[in-house]
């Protein structure tokens, strides 16, 4: 039992990769989601339709299939292997980040669309009434409002990404899950290592929740206290 502690550098390494995957995917996914949400409100029919199609495809298929499609699938095409893109797409880390951020972007897009729908109509009408251009109204009124509405649901999405990073271990990445598997293969201490990994994942969960609690408190509209 005691010698499990000697494996902490490996576990810390795995945890670091999991964190890296998560942070990269969350930030890239958020940027992509905002872009896709804007596209889905554009005047161009093709732009709106293509966002719909991407979201439909990503939300309808398992993350594992998406990871495999990007990591194993892309190599099938000769022409991609000749471009400089190949330097990125043959790295499992990059593939996992691309897959995870695409995945989270699509779920977040739906979330943001829903949040924008629930921005009170009279606020949007007020923007029109004082002559705000569409983009300015979006930037100043609708988006900040929508973000506030979306934050609680978005915290779930971030936890989903954290859980999704464990699938990166299937494409040879030694994240927390992959490292756990490797250590188990070395030591045959199956249950203890799974329990350690479970504890670490729950800890990360807790950290995410605390961060979002803070974010919610920070972004809350100051209310007049009714006393």
């Amino acid at each position, binding site marked *: 039992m005691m010698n499990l502690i000697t494996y902490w550098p490996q576990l810390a390494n795995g945890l670091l990769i999991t964190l890296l995957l998560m942070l990269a995917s969350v930030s890239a996914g958020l940027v992509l989601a905002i872009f896709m949400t804007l596209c889905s409100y554009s005047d161009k029919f093709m732009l709106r339709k293509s966002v719909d199609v991407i979201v439909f495809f990503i939300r309808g*298929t*398992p993350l594992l299939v998406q990871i495999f499609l990007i990591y194993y*699938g892309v190599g099938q095409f000769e022409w991609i292997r000749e471009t400089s893109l190949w330097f990125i797409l043959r790295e499992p880390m990059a593939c996992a980040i691309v897959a995870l951020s695409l995945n989270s972007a699509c779920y977040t897009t739906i979330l943001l669309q829903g949040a924008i729908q629930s921005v009170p109509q009279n606020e949007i009408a007020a923007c029109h009434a004082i002559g705000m251009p569409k983009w300015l109204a979006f930037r100043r009124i609708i988006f900040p409002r929508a973000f506030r509405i979306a934050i609680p649901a978005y915290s779930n999405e971030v936890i989903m990404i954290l859980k999704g990073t464990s699938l990166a271990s299937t494409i040879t990445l030694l994240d927390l*899950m992959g490292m756990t*598997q490797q250590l188990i293969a070395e030591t045959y201490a199956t*249950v203890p290592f*799974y329990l350690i*990994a*479970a504890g670490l*994942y729950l800890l990360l969960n807790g950290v995410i929740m605390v961060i979002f609690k803070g974010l919610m408190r920070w972004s809350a509209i100051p209310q007049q206290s009714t006393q």
Partner: protein
Amino acid sequence: MHFDGFILQILLGTLITLKVALCALIFGMVVGLVGASLEFIPNRWLRYLALCIIFIIRGLPELLVLFFIYFGAAAILSNVFGHYVDISAFAAGVIALGLIFGAYASQVFRGAFLAIDAGQVEAGKAMGFSRSQILRRIQLPQAWRHAIPGLGNLWLVLLKDTAIVTLIGLTDMMNQAKIAASTTHQPFTFYLIAAGIYLLITSVSQKVVQVFSLKANRYMHA
């Protein structure tokens, strides 16, 4: 190119995928109902324990839960019985996915039961219904209506999660696609076919959930 043969194999794998998903759904529904009823038990510590287990399962990656049940439980049972115990991949998949489904479903059921007006249950009592009659005739039909949208979403999540059972060696659709991909060196084609089948199943499921929801709400006036 033995393209047709691979397609046939993938379709056979699809059946396994559906079988895992349906068994996990049934198991998960039971777990969810039990989980939801645990939250109404009077003993505070039992209730905390139930909530704790639900919280833990919801917070862990699906892959970890699956591996824990397939490899971890086998290790524990082997220790207990003193000889090697093998858990079938199918059973492990169903139990793991069912537990995950159940952990989320218990919240859905809890919300659905709480959404029923307390007056309904009181009316049942006043009419002299027994507890089980109240549950069967009054609570379940109405809770079902509130639970359908949530359960529908969970079913879609479950369907997509079934892909991970391929990692414990079950020959489901993903596994067949993997075999086809590595034999023909056309990974993109075959993973895309698998993605297409998942897309088809989820789209059909969404329609079925809509029908269920319409059927359950047919007495409701808008």
